C-alpha cells in the first residue's frame, strides 16, 4: 500500500480515480482509454505542481517519506556483485549503516550508506537509520579498506541523525563522528557523497565529507531537524514548518549556498513512487562524476578537497 502525505492527497485521489476507471474496462459507453489518458495527463500536471511548489516543510516530509527508497533498494539497480561487509571489528555490526564492495559499470567501488529500513521489523533492526559509534567505525574501516585498494568511495546519506542514546554516549559517539570527519578529509581516493533522503546533522556529515556532494531533488540536509530546531528556538515542536523555512534545508537552498555540486533529478512522481527512474538518474550523475574524479591525480584531488573544506563558511572580515 502506497502512503500519501497530507499534501499529496490530491494525487492519491486522482490515482484511485484513474485506477477505478481502468477497472471498468470496455463495458461502458464512454471511451475509457481516452479518459484515462486525459486523467493521467491531469495527474502529471498535479504532481508537478505539488512537488515543484512544495514548501520547505513539505520537502522535509518528502525526504523522509515512508515509501522513499533506501540505499539497499538502489544497490541492485545501480551496482553489480555487491558484497556486504559487516562490523567494526571492535564491538558490533551496526545495521543502521551498510557497506560493501560493488561493481559500478567497469569500476570496483566501496559503497557505504545509511539504511533506515522499510518494514517495522527492519526499521527496528536498523534503528531507523540512526547509527551508533560502531556504525561510524564500520564506515571508517571500509573507507580505509577502499584507500588501501585504490577504490573510490560512494556514500549515501539518509538519516535523521546519529543515535542519541546512553549506549552511544558511553562508547564515544562524538569521537566516532569526529574521527570520520578528520580521516575522510585526507582519504587518498575519490569520495562522492549523495543525500538520498534525510541529511540529518552530524550523523549525516560523518559519512559526507569528500570531493563531491550531490542531493536528490526531494532530499534535505540540515544542521538539525525542523522539529528539533523548533523545540529549541520556539520552545514548541509545532513550529517545525517555520523552522524548516528558516533552516533552508532543500537541495535548491544548498545549491544557492554553493555547498553542493549538483541536484540529482527525480522521476516526475518522485523517487518514492518510481524507484527505477530514480536509480537511473542517480547512476548517471554518479558515473559521470566518478569518471571525472578518476582522471585527477591524488595530490591534486587532496589539495582541492582541502581547499574546499578550508573555505566553508560565510562571515565578514573588517
Amino acid at each position, binding site marked *: 500500500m502506497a502512503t500519501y502525505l497530507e499534501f499529496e492527497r490530491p494525487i492519491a485521489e486522482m490515482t484511485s480515480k484513474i485506477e477505478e476507471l481502468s477497472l471498468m474496462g470496455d463495458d461502458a459507453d464512454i471511451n475509457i482509454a481516452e479518459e484515462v489518458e486525459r486523467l493521467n495527463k491531469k495527474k502529471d500536471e498535479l504532481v508537478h505542481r505539488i512537488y515543484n511548489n512544495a514548501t520547505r516543510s513539505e520537502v522535509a516530509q518528502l525526504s523522509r517519506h515512508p515509501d522513499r527508497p533506501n540505499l539497499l533498494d538502489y544497490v541492485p539497480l545501480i551496482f553489480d556483485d555487491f558484497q556486504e561487509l559487516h562490523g567494526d571489528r571492535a564491538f558490533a555490526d551496526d545495521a543502521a549503516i551498510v557497506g560493501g564492495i560493488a561493481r559500478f559499470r567497469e569500476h570496483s567501488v566501496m559503497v557505504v550508506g545509511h539504511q533506515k529500513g522499510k518494514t517495522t521489523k527492519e526499521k527496528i533492526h536498523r534503528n531507523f537509520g540512526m547509527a551508533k559509534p560502531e556504525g561510524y567505525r564500520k564506515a571508517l574501516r571500509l573507507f580505509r579498506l577502499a584507500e588501501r585498494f585504490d577504490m573510490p568511495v560512494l556514500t549515501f546519506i539518509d538519516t535523521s541523525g546519529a543515535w542519541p*542514546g546512553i549506549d552511544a554516549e558511553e562508547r564515544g559517539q562524538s569521537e566516532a*563522528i569526529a574521527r570520520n570527519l578528520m580521516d575522510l*578529509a*585526507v582519504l587518498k581516493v575519490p569520495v562522492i557523497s549523495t543525500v538520498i533522503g534525510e541529511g540529518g546533522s552530524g550523523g549525516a556529515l560523518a559519512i559526507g*565529507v569528500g570531493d563531491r556532494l550531490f542531493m536528490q531533488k526531494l532530499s534535505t540536509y540540515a544542521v538539525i531537524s525542523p522539529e528539533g530546531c523548533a523545540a529549541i*528556538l520556539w520552545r514548541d515542536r509545532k513550529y517545525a514548518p517555520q523552522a524548516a523555512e528558516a533552516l533552508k534545508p532543500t537541495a535548491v537552498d544548498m545549491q544557492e549556498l554553493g555547498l553542493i555540486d549538483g541536484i540529482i533529478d527525480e522521476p516526475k512522481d518522485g523517487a518514492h513512487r518510481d524507484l527505477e527512474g530514480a536509480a537511473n538518474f542517480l547512476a548517471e550523475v554518479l558515473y559521470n562524476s566518478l569518471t571525472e574524479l578518476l582522471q585527477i591525480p591524488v595530490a591534486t584531488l587532496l589539495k582541492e578537497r582541502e581547499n574546499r573544506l*578550508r573555505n*566553508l563558511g560565510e562571515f565578514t572580515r573588517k
Partner: protein
Amino acid sequence: MSWLTRLIERPKTILGKEGDTPDGLWIKCAGCSDTLYNKELERSEMVCPRCGQHVRVSAAQRASFLFDVDSYDECDTNLFSQDTLNFKDQMRYTDRIKAANKKAGNGDAARNYLGDIKGVTTSVTMFEFAYMGGSMGSVVGEKIALGMERALERRCPYLLITASGGARMQEGILSLMQMAKTSSVANRLQEAKLPFVCLLTDPTMGGVSASVAWLGDVIIAEPNALIGFAGPRVIQETVAEELPAGFQRAEFLLQHGLIDEVVDRREQRDYLKTLFEHLMARAYRQPN
C-alpha cells in the same frame, strides 16, 4: 540594614544563570552553597576553594589565568558573523548577534590567543560560552582554523578550550560544515607533528563535541564538566530510561576510556607545560 548584611543576605549564585560571570563582592557557591569572597574565588581561578566547583569563566578571564603575565595577545579580532540565511526564529539572527555583542563582547563565541604557558608559546582558541551558548558558526570555525594555522606557522602547540552547546542553528547548514572544516585542518597539525591538545570545559556538546573537540592528540577535561554528543534531555526523551549517575560528566568519560585525564583548573598550567615539552622533545630522532 547595614551595608554588610545587605551584601551577605543577597549573595549572587555562581551558576544561577548560564554563562553569567559573577561580579558581586560576595558569591554563593553553587556546589557547596558556601558564601565566598569574590577576590578569594578569583585567586583560586574561579574554583571554589572549599568544594572544588569549577565556575564557568569568560575567555578573557581564563586567558588571564592560563598565560604567563603580559605574555599573550588576542588575535583574529577582525571576524564577524553575518546572517547569510536571513534566519529568523522568534528573533532575527542579526538581533541575536547584537544582543550577544552587548552581553559578551564582539569577539563572537571563540577567541584566539598567542601566549606563553609557563614559558611554552602556544596558539590557543577559547570558546566564549556567554556568547550565544558558545555555538559554533562560521566565525568560530574560521577562528579555530586560523588558530591551528598560527601553530603551524610558529611551529608551536595548539590548545583548544571548548565550552559550547554545539552548532549555531541560525547559520543552518553552514554551521554544520564548520565541523568538517575544523576537522580537516586538524590533519595538518598531525602531519606537522605539532601537539594538539583539547581541554573540554563545561559544557561541550553537539557539533563541537562531535568534531574538533575530540581530535586532539591528548584530550583533558575540567572536573564535572558536561560533555557529550546529545543533550541529556534529548536522550532521556528518546530512550525513556533513567540516566546513570554522573552521566556525561568528565569523570564518567574518563571511566569509559574516552578522555585522557580530568585536570583541575589550578593545575592545568603545569600539566600543559609538561605535556607540551614531552611532545616536542623528540627523544628518538631518526638516524640519517
